[in-house]
């Protein structure tokens, strides 16, 4: 797991109060929703808000790709990097 992925895993734990889970329990490819970490739709909203605040990025709520971006920690990290590059340019 790279630094950004570790950072996002910690953000997920803190934002969603996953009190019995540690960063080391989350792998980059572990599904976040349903099976895997077991998050739900309210978590998705909460997480989107936390990501926007933390990384100063925009997430369009009607983005067709949102489901793809929120698949796992690796996809979220790739999305955050892409958004940061887009916002910076």
């Amino acid at each position: 797991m790279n630094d950004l992925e570790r950072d996002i895993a910690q953000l997920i734990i803190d934002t969603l109060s996953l009190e019995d889970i540690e960063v080391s329990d989350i792998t980059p490819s572990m599904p976040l929703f349903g099976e895997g970490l077991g998050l739900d739709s309210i978590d998705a909203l909460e997480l989107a808000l936390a990501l926007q605040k933390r990384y100063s990025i925009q997430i369009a709520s009607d983005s067709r790709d949102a489901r793809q971006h929120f698949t796992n920690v690796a996809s979220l990290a790739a999305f955050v990097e892409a958004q940061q590059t887009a916002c910076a340019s």
Partner: protein
Amino acid sequence: MIDLRIADWRAWAPGLDSSEAWQSWANAPWTPDEHDEQPDCGFLPAMQRRRLSRMARIALHVAWPLCGDEEQLPFVFASRHGETTRTYAMLGDVADQQPLSPTQFGLSVHNAIAGQWSILRGQRGEAVAIAGEGDTFEHAMLEAATLLDQGAPAVIVVIAEERPPAPYAGWIDDIPFSYAVALRVGASRTGTAPASRWQLQLISSTNEVKTDWPFALDFVRRALHGPTTSLVHTWKTRQWIWQPIP
């Protein structure tokens, strides 16, 4: 006039979490120090616990043992002031022009705890959330009486209040410390004799009778412990008379 059988009860306050502790408190009441203590609600998996506010944890903690898993009982949640901690935090976000947390916003309704009880306990029956004045306790019991009258074998009643954030100090002066009292009104869970039986009567009177503590706590102290004598509680023009039935 209504008859109320109190089959069982539980109460929680900081440092007061056993029948022995409440017995001591009833003998010589004090205001416990408070440092954000909350029950751990270890009976729930962590994933189900994480969205419970402090007040929700306190309320569920006291209500939990009063209802059997096989039972479906109506639920009455009563709180005069509700979750001021959450409200204040959200108002702060609004003032700072910050987006609101979807979780916090979604749970910022007076019936959120009743909803969480329903989901977490698989309770599909009636649920009522009320906010009254200084006699919220009596109104909750009145609500329970109407549900019993409609055929419910028993009703779970929870009265909960949380110490508000400091800026509310000029407005809220009736919460000396956070507390919750849960009562099982009606039939006992185990079929044993009811803990106590009461007749509740409302008359119109402005002859104020001050109670030392919020009435739910005074009820714990004077009705659920020690000698059972009648209790009188007046709020504005409403005088509630609690008469023990031997």
